[in-house]
């Protein structure tokens, strides 16, 4: 695959699935600089992954796997632009966020942010309609474990919504 083909596929994925990527970024990074940093990290990993995409799964499943993997790793390390290895111009933000249209959506993001990294990824997959089978493939764990975890998350979120 030539670099031009990779770039073309990357641009198409970015256009068609930006909502998916933004949901992950918003769930794992909580200020503008961090969101920019995580988004750029995810964009790089997605770009690198284009050549190894073998169409054995849907593009959304592939993107979720790459983006979640990047986000989970990103949360465990220092932000890249703090280590002094790279001089990155941060005067211009990559993503400009608008106000969320619904207060309940903001509440949902706040609740997701309280969860640990793994539960967060499962919640995102669940809210985006992935099946247990797909979730187990994306995370590399058994379907039964996914099922138990999902039930706990659902119960937790429902209880929290009743309290608020």
């Amino acid at each position: 695959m030539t670099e031009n083909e990779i770039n073309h596929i990357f641009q198409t994925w970015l256009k068609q699935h930006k909502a998916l990527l933004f949901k992950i970024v918003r769930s794992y990074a909580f200020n503008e600089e961090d969101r920019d940093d995580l988004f750029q990290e995810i964009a790089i990993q997605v770009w690198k992954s284009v050549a190894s995409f073998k169409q054995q799964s849907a593009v959304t499943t592939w993107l979720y796997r790459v983006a979640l993997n990047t986000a989970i790793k990103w949360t465990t390390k220092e932000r890249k632009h703090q280590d002094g290895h790279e001089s990155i111009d941060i005067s211009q933000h990559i993503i400009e966020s608008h106000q969320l249209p619904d207060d309940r959506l903001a509440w949902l993001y706040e609740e997701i942010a309280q969860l640990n990294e793994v539960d967060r990824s499962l919640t995102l997959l669940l809210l985006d309609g992935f099946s247990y089978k797909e979730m187990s493939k994306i995370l590399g764990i058994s379907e039964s474990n996914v099922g138990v975890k999902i039930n706990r998350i659902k119960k937790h979120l429902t209880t929290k919504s009743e309290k608020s």
Partner: protein
Amino acid sequence: MEFKEMKKIWDTQNDEALYVINEDALHRRIKAKKVGTKRRTSFSEVVLIASNLCAGGVVIISHLLKNSGNVVAVTMGAMMMIVGMYILFLRSQRIKRDQQTDVSILGDLENAIENINYRIKLSQSMIWFCLIVIALTMYTVLNSDQSVFNIVLISAFFIVGFIMSRWEHKRFNLGKKKQLLDLKEKLINEFEM
């Protein structure tokens, strides 16, 4: 609120433009990042392969041409050539492994851990190999007509090089491995009911 309701609220994001991507800024940052993180493993391998093959070749050829009869130096040159070729073989194995596609986050993590283990092994082997080369070089230098100043200079060069390689090994490789292992443990523990 029922979970179905939450899902409906969640789906409202799909139709609204909540974010705008500044494509120029993204392009610039990706370019900067690609340069910054340019395949550290690959670079180390190429440097090690080239330096060992070249240095080994130069040592052997110069001693053979001079017919010096210095067995220690020729042995050292041969060792460097063998190490260079061995790293070349390891590199081809690593590239083959990297091309295998992973299908899960856990699989990705395991692959990343394998790669860091490879870097640790490579780095450790080079530290031991470096010690042998230092010992042989020092033996040759001490048995030649070099001045004390030259001997001190060569020793200082080796000591600094050795300390730097230990530092690099601890700072980057071991730290990164610990980070990945912690993450894997976290992921596995999360699902142990």
